[in-house]
């Protein structure tokens, strides 16, 4: 099986894999040697020497934390090589608490941006295929049932809490904050946000955890309509994905 076919299978299974390729070699040496690298450090193939392989694995594992693709210079006794590391990450997941009106365009935009989308709500009549035709999964559950439902929240998960009612925000944050989620955003005005943060502080949630919550959610673009607010939220999610997020004032 060729490397292309192996990568294709990993993409289909939504498992991360990277391909390291020698793209520049010292005079007289060939380019084009390839090696596959897996997140646990296992490899398949060789770039031609132990130094190159070890160097490439170290860089690949580092790059997998941020995803993306990059070329690295690697020094060997034979001279300087350049190895391109191409990471094929599984698609990120957008987990939406609240099948509310903003969730409808948000799920559409997220799907368009390559995200898997899952919407959680305890109210069956809002959580319908008619309202969310693009959603990959509709999960009928109240936030405090999420743990029992065993909803997977990993470092590739982006959580958007749209319930803006403390009865639901609270449990949604309770499951989100201890998770390794890449992004946690909660809708609400500055007042709602301040009240929520105060409530969390009193409940013993650390300042570090509270600071993880993006609120008021979204980048400021003056959005008013549901679709506009969804764009503002999606823009913030993408900013975090690409490491462009800045702390709010």
């Amino acid at each position, binding site marked *: 099986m060729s*490397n*292309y076919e192996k990568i*294709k299978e990993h993409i289909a299974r939504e498992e991360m894999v990277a391909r390291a*390729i020698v*793209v520049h070699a010292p005079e007289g040496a060939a380019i*084009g040697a390839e090696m596959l690298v897996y997140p646990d450090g296992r490899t398949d193939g060789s770039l031609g020497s132990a130094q190159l392989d070890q160097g490439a694995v170290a860089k690949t594992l580092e790059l997998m934390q941020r995803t993306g*693709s990059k*070329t690295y210079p690697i020094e060997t006794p034979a001279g300087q090589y350049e190895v*391109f590391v*191409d990471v094929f990450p599984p698609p990120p997941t957008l987990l939406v608490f609240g099948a509310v009106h903003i969730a409808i365009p948000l799920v559409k935009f997220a799907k368009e941006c390559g995200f898997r989308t899952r919407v959680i709500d305890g109210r069956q009549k809002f959580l319908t295929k008619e309202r969310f035709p693009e959603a990959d999964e509709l999960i009928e559950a109240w936030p405090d049932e999420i743990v029992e439902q065993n909803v997977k929240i990993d470092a590739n998960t982006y959580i958007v809490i749209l319930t803006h009612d403390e009865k639901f925000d609270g449990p949604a944050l309770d499951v989100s904050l201890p998770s390794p989620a890449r992004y946690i955003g909660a809708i609400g005005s500055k007042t709602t946000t301040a009240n929520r943060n105060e409530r969390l502080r009193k409940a013993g949630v650390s300042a570090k955890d509270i600071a993880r919550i993006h609120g008021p959610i979204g980048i400021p673009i003056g959005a008013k309509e549901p679709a506009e607010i969804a764009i503002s939220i999606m823009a913030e999610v993408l900013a975090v994905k690409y490491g462009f997020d800045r702390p709010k004032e």
Partner: protein
Amino acid sequence: MQEVLPTIEEWRAEGEDIALATVVKTTGPAPRFEGAKMAVTRSGKLVGSVSGGCVEGAVFEEAQRVLRSRKPKLVKYGISKESAWDIGLSCGGGIEVYISPLE
């Protein structure tokens, strides 16, 4: 990769000879990111992009040579005005594109 994969799969089913071009390095402003891909067939089909349309034509020609030689190649575009490459990027940046036959 995901954006070109479905088309590549169709081509493979049709028995096309395919070369894959990948942006492996960018300097300064660049219209596409490292990892961006374009696939080309010997019969002249093309999918994906490695720039905003600035060097696709040149990459297509290089890909044809790679398909004949079966040897991968690294090509640089728009590094500087003085460079030997006559195909530039209007944004003032530079990209390096790795082209290899898709096995």
